[in-house]
Every structure is written in C-alpha cells, then in structure tokens.
C-alpha cells in the first residue's frame, strides 16, 4: 500500500515541481514525465500483485479535524482499474515529453504537467479512497485537473467553451455524488465504502439513482455525455488519451463500487444500465460518423465504448440478480476486459491523432489525406488502432465484444419470456453497433490517412519524432498482445469477478480467441508471401488511378468524410442535413451547414439554461436600483416577520 501511495505522491510532487519550474520548459517536461512514468510503475506493481491473488491492501489513518478517520485500500476491483491508469499514464507522459514542446508555449508547459500529474494522482486517489470525504476530495481534484488539461490551450474560444461545459457537468456530477454520500451517511451512520448495506427499503434505489447520475456524468453516460466530445477534442492529445482511456473508466469504477456497496441492487438496476449503455453506444457511434474533426470523432467513439462497458455491467447485474452466475461472469468479464482494451486502443488512437496534428498541423479530416506515405509509422499505428477499436478479430477489441456476445447468447437461451427477448434484441443492436463502428473507423482511416492529401498542410506533413512514436509503438504492441492472448488478462479477473458476481463466478475461457488470432496471423503471413511471390514474378508497373479517363484529376475529387457518412445521415436513421430556404424578397445569405448535428447539448441543455437566465433577468427588474424600493422591501419583510411571529406563536404566555 505504501508503494501505491508513494507512486501517487511522487506523481503529484513531480507535477508540482514542473509547475514551479516555470519558464524552463525542458526541465518541467523532464520532471513531469519522469515522475509520471515512475509513479505509474510504482502503482502497477502492487496492482498486478493484488490481481494475481495477493491479499487486498488496506491502511487506515487518523487525520485532523475536518477529515476524521481516513481509510485507504486496494482490492481487486480497484487494482483492475489501476492497471490501465498506470500503463496509460506512464506511456502518455513519455509521449507528452516530446509532444508538448511543439504545442505549448514554454511558460505554460509546467501547467500542463501539473494538470496531467494531478489528474493521475487524483484518479489513483479515487480508486483507493475508502471513505466519503477522501473520495469526494480526490474526485473533485481529478475533475479540476481534467479541467486544467481541457482548457490548456485557452486562447481558442471553443476550448474555453468546452472548459465551461466540462466544469458544469463535473460540478453537477459532484453535487449528485455529494448527496449520494450524504444519504449513505445519514442512513448508515458511517460512510465507509466497503461495508455492503443491509437491503433496506427504498434506500438502494435512491442510492443507485444518485450513483448513476453522479458517476454517469463523469463516465459520459447518455444524457450527461454532452461535455465529452468537446472536452476531449480541446485537451492536448496525451491529456485526452488519459481522459478518454482512464478517466471515464473511473466513472464506471464508481458505478461498480456503488453497486457493490448496495449489494447487487434492486431489479431495475440491470435493465436501466443496459438501456443507458446501449443508447449511449448507438448515439455515440452515430454522431462519430458525421464528425469532421479527428479528435471529436474519437471522443464520440469513447462515448460508444463506455456505453458498451456500462451495458456489459448492466447485463452482469441483471444476470446476477436472476442467479445466472455463469452468464454474469461472462458479461462482467467482457466489460472489464473492454476497460483494459479500450484504454489501450483509445490511448493509441488519441496519441496517433496528436501525432497527425503534430505533423499536419490540423485535425480536420477534410484537410488531411495521403499521410500513410508521408507519415508511415503514425499511419500504420493509427490503422492498427482503428482495426482494434472496431472490434475486429486478431486485435484486443474483439475478445471483449466476443464475451458480451456470449453472455447475450447465453442469456437469450437460458432466460424466458420478455427477458430473453430483450437480451436478443440487445444482441441485434450490439451487432449494429459493431457494424457502425467499423464504418466509422474505415471512414476515419480512409479519409484522414489514406488517399491523396487534400491540403498543402497534409502534403507537407512530416513524420513525428521518435519520442512520440515509441510510446505509440508500445501501446500498439500491448494491443496486439492483448488481442493474441486475452486469456492472460481475463485470468487476472478472478478476484474482481468474485466481488461482483459472487464466489461461484470464474473467469471465462478464451482459448478459442487465441486460437483464432494465431490462425489469422498465420494466414495473413502466408497470404502476404503468396502475393509477394506473385508480384515479383509478374512484375509491377505504376499507373494513374482510374478516373474514368477524366483529363485533370485533383485530390478534391476524392470522397470526403461527410459524404462517406452521408447515407446514414440522410436516409436511414436520423435526418441531419439542413437545406437553407432562401428568403423570397431580398436574398438573405443562405448557408448550407450539412454537418449541423446539434446533439443533446445544442438542442436541449443550452436553450433551457438560456430560458432560465432570461427569466432571472426579468426578475431582476424588480430591484430597479432606487433606494425607496429597497426600503419598501425591508418594510414588507419586517411586517411579514412580525405578523408571523405574533400569529404563529398563538396564545403562549
């Protein structure tokens, strides 16, 4: 436990030192990166140790007045989430060391590192906190550090807007969490996170509802996901990698912890989580297809994947509630494996996107293209990440979805009546999400990386330095490794599964997936050799791409990101193309904004807040600034109070 806390302390102090290093950017970078990676290592060792079956670590300290007894612990569930935190934190730090100098003014590098390291330390704090006050403090510290990262490049107005939306969502989440812990403390008299409750009356439902709201706001569950796309697009790439890869998972961790605390929870908990998760997945991937900016598309894919994870947890809870432990183990196993898998893949993709923006100085897909030839390593790594996150076989994304499919199939077969039907419908929807995901990432890779460059910035793109490619390579290796041998990771889930689905649960067997991966890699090697042989024999000639004999083909003739997603956007699911109606009399400037995807934020939240603000403004006119009115208010207040005092007290002597 001490090593863990030492890791967190080292990371935080490194960040602080980087902040104090002020103008000396290189020193700040070195300090921050070294402390983050070292801290990561210090966290990884005990986490793996606990996962491998070691006894859960606990530590209780008696602090001063406002804190009272503070207890800290690392059980398999926390350890499971600590591993991606450590890995991605360290890798992101190394990447940031060479990414930041080009993207951050020397004076503010310290701020970036302070935010990054505090985010790391805060997240670890949340994972190990075992009582309400420490949990809330580390949780808010994490949110504020996240805000530090999101509004790092605050010179751009959209970054500031993203920062404000992020803060509002974070504050709403914290308010809900505050009431969660207050209700908990009020009913059980103490606020330890470990002791499961006796199944009281309405208490579990209230607690879980607050938990879904509070943790969902941070995890990006469907109604509260509006801040996620803008925030992750605004943060520096290694920051958004950490936020997408790990911070949203901390929200999922909180949800699991609440479910554990309440002991499985009421019957509605599973289905609601499945519904929320699935809608989140569908909406997330649907929006991602029509996005134009690279990092926003990736952020929306995070919304989709978190949706899948929460759906997995919902399925697990649902099955556990009905006693089907084996199916619950499958579902929880799939969700937990996806936490690791998605952390690695999304981290790789965001670092790749950062490398693209480093090389081509823009994240807008419509200005990219042709990068595979100019930035071969980044292109290849991004392609690998895309294949993985679309859930396709040989890589790490497939195993988790495979487990989810198995649990759904098992549930469909075992349960009867409405439950079976709903599980099967969910299976169909999961298949649709899988298809849309591969469409989204074919679009991402095909438009941004392949083809010919659509702007001179893309044409003159240059490969990123080794300092950025090596961490991405490490993540890519992890993705391939997890894809080839998911059994290793799932083997470690023993402790967590027993916590979640009861002692009978055992980690599912994934030997088949490894078999498939081996067969596939072998087949690809043979196929490659065959093609190489054929091409060598037949010879290769270079010729212009077939353009129907058009005289002067230009890169702009290529398919664009929007057109690739147009079929979905237009007809099948949601109509988002808007045609401007030119005014009859004097022609007003008409504008075709074919990517007008208002999303929940633009369509719902902002108008309601604006309406409330307008009502407040109308109210304010009452205090019109002249002193007579103020005195009149005082008089009214006085008379009311006096009347109430004399009347309410009745005839008391």
């Amino acid at each position, binding site marked *: 436990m001490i090593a863990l806390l030492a890791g967190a302390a080292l990371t935080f102090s490194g960040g602080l030192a980087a902040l104090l290093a002020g103008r000396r950017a290189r020193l700040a970078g070195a300090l921050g990166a070294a402390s983050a990676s070292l801290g990561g290592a210090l966290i990884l060792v005990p986490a793996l140790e606990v996962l491998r079956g070691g006894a859960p670590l606990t530590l209780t300290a008696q602090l001063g007045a406002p804190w009272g007894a503070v207890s800290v612990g690392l059980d398999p569930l926390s350890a499971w989430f600590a591993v991606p935190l450590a890995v991605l934190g360290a890798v992101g730090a190394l990447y940031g060391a060479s990414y930041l100098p080009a993207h951050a003014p020397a004076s503010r590098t310290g701020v970036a590192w302070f935010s990054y390291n505090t985010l790391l330390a805060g997240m670890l704090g949340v994972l190990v906190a075992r009582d309400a006050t420490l949990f809330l403090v580390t949780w808010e510290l994490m949110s504020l550090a996240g805000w530090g990262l999101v509004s790092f490049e605050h010179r751009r107005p959209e970054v500031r807007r993203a920062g404000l939306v992020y803060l509002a969502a974070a504050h709403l989440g914290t308010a809900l969490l505050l009431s969660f812990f207050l209700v908990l403390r009020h009913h059980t008299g103490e606020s330890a996170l470990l002791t499961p409750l006796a199944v009281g009356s309405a208490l579990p439902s209230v607690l879980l509802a607050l938990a879904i709201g509070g943790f969902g706001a941070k995890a990006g569950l469907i109604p509260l996901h509006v801040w996620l796309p803008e925030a992750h697009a605004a943060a520096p790439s290694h920051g958004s990698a950490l936020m997408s890869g790990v911070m949203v998972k901390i929200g999922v961790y909180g949800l699991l912890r609440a479910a554990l605390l309440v002991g499985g929870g009421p019957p509605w908990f599973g289905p609601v989580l499945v519904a929320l998760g699935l809608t989140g997945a569908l909406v997330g991937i649907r929006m991602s297809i029509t996005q134009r900016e690279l990092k926003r598309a990736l952020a929306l894919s995070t919304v989709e994947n978190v949706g899948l994870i929460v759906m997995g947890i919902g399925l697990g809870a649902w099955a556990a509630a009905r006693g089907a432990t084996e199916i619950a183990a499958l579902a929880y196993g799939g969700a937990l494996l996806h936490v690791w898998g998605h952390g690695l893949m999304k981290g790789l993709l965001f670092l790749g996107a950062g490398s693209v923006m480093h090389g081509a100085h823009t994240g807008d897909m419509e200005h990219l293209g042709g990068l*595979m030839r100019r930035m*071969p390593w980044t292109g290849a790594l991004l392609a690998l990440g895309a*294949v993985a996150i679309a859930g*396709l*076989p040989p890589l790490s994304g497939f195993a988790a*979805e495979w487990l989810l*499919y*198995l649990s759904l*199939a098992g549930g*469909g*077969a075992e349960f009867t009546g409405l439950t*079976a*039907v709903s599980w*099967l*419908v969910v*299976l*169909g929807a999961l*298949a*649709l999400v*899988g*298809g849309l995901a*591969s469409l989204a990432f*074919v*679009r991402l*890779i*095909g*438009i941004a990386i*392949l*083809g*010919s460059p659509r702007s001179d910035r893309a044409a003159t793109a240059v490969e990123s330095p080794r300092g950025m490619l090596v961490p991405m390579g490490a993540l890519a290796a992890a993705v391939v490794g997890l894809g080839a041998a998911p059994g290793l990771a799932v083997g470690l889930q023993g402790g967590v599964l027993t916590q979640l689905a009861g002692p009978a649960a055992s980690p599912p067997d994934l030997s*088949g*997936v490894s*078999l*498939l991966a081996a067969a*596939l890699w072998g087949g*690809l090697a043979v*196929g490659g050799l*065959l*093609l190489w042989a*054929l*091409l060598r024999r*037949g*010879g*290769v*000639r*270079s*010729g*212009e*791409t*077939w*353009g129907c004999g058009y005289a002067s083909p230009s890169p702009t*003739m*290529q*398919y664009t990101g929007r*057109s*690739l*997603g147009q*079929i979905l956007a237009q*007809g*099948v699911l949601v109509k988002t193309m808007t045609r401007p109606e030119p005014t009859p009399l004097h022609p007003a400037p008409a504008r075709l904004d074919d990517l007008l995807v208002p999303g929940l934020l633009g369509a719902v939240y902002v108008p309601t807040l604006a309406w409330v603000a307008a009502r407040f403004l109308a109210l304010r006119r009452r205090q019109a600034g002249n002193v007579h009115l103020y005195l009149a208010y005082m008089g009214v207040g006085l008379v009311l109070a006096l009347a109430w005092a004399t009347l309410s007290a009745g005839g008391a002597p």
Partner: protein
Amino acid sequence: MNLVLHLLLLTLLPPLMGGVIGRVRALVAGRRGPPLLQPYYELVKLAQKSAVISPTTSWVFLAGPVVGLTTALVAGLMLPLGAASAPLSFTGDLVAFAYLLGLGRFFTSAAALDTGSAFEGMGAAREATYSALIEPALLLGMMALVLSTGSTSLAALLGGGAPSPLSVAGAPLLLVGVSLFLVLLAENSRVPFDDPATHLELTMVHEVMVLDHSGPLLGLIQYGAWVKLTLFAAILVRLLLPLGWGPAWADWALLPVGVVVVAAGIGAIESSMARTRLLLVPRMLVSACLLSAFGLLLLAR
C-alpha cells in the same frame, strides 16, 4: 483425411460457383455461356499478369486483397463442410465468423479509399454502410440456430451429428432461412443489392471498390469473393438439408451438390430481376434484419 477433404473442398469449389452462375445466366438468356471452368482459367491468367499500382497508394492497397482472402479462408475453416466437424471450432465462433468477414470488408474498403478515386470512395461508403445494416440479420439468424441447438459453436450448430435444425423447429427457421439468403445476396453483392456485371462505376457497390486492383491483386480478390459466396451457400445448405443419417461419403458429396444448386438459384434470380434503386437498398437490408428477428422471436417464445 477429413481435414484434407475439407481443405480441398474449401479451396477448389468456390470458382465453380462463379462458373455455374455465369452458365445459368447465359442459359436463361438463351446463350450457351462461358465454360463452367471459366473462373479457374481467369484466376490462372490473372496470377501471371503484372499488377498496375497507383502512386497515391500505400501498403494498405496491397493488404486489402490479402486480408480479404485470408479472412474468407479462415472463416471457411470454422464451417463444417462435410461429415466431419470444422477443423477450427470453439464456443462462440459464430461471432468470430461474422467479425472475420467484417475484418475482410474493413481492409477492402480501406484499400479502395487508399487509391484516392471518387468512385472507389463511393463503393467503400456503400459497402461499409450496407454491411453495417446487414450485420444484425446475420447474427440474429445465427442466434436462431443457437436457440434450436443450444450451443454457440458453428461446428455443433451445422455439424453432421446435430439433428437438422429444420426438423427441430420448422416454420421459424424458414423465416431465418429466407433472411440468411438475403444476407448472402447482400454480403456478396449479388443482383438485388448490386449488379456485378455492370460497367457503370456510379451504380456499382462491390465491383467499383476493386476497380484499381489488377493482375494477382484482382485474382486474390475475386477468389476471396467466391470463397465467401461458397461459405454462405454452405450455411444455407446445412440449414435446409437434413444431414448425418446417411454414410459419410454421402454427406461429403451432398454439400457440393447443394452449393451448386444454390449457385444456380442465384443465377436464376440474377437473370430474372434487375438491381434495385440505391435508396431502397437500406430498406431491404432492414427488412432482412426484421425477418430474422421475428424468426428468432417465434423461437425464443
């Protein structure tokens, strides 16, 4: 021995499908049509030709055909073709089957986009969107089989030992069968969804993606396409025909015949109707999904 027979069937049978379809189309149109072994000749010819590669492309352009073929073959390994069970089978490999084809499709689309031509982009967009919409139909159809036989491994579902699904559940599986046939047509870009014989780039879906592939690359792609067609036909055959009652050689013989019959059916359909309007295709795909979903609901009740 079974493994050798399985591999032989898997590698040699597919081009025949192409020949049969071509021949049936010709006969219906009153022509003699090309010889049955025409596709084999084409493959050999393409293997010797030299490939023309556009300067805008990268290694993804070359990887497209290879991944397409490999995924089809590996998926083939998972399907029980004859009496024996599939060489590569594990619980839940029906999901792997679907996602393997997804991987193949991912790379062919990426290869199409790599060339940087407007037509190939169009083809890639249509292909990816249509496959995304048809994916639920395939998986729900498979689920119907899972419900009727109880195991999630293809070998058990369609294998020799298992009683023929039709006899077990009858009517609902007919619905699923029709839906799987539609999936077959959509996945392999046959007529109602796409017209392989057209030369108008704007109207194609699958063919336009392979516009720029030439020589061995084109060969690999066509061979992969036929293997995929054979796989889907094999699923359909195992679904409809009861197996496992006769001697082993009968099962081994029954499959090629069944597959050829399915190819003839496809040829008949291709010559009897034209390609539907592009805007209507999503509607047909969704209806295929609903068909298999209803079939499943009837079973799950």
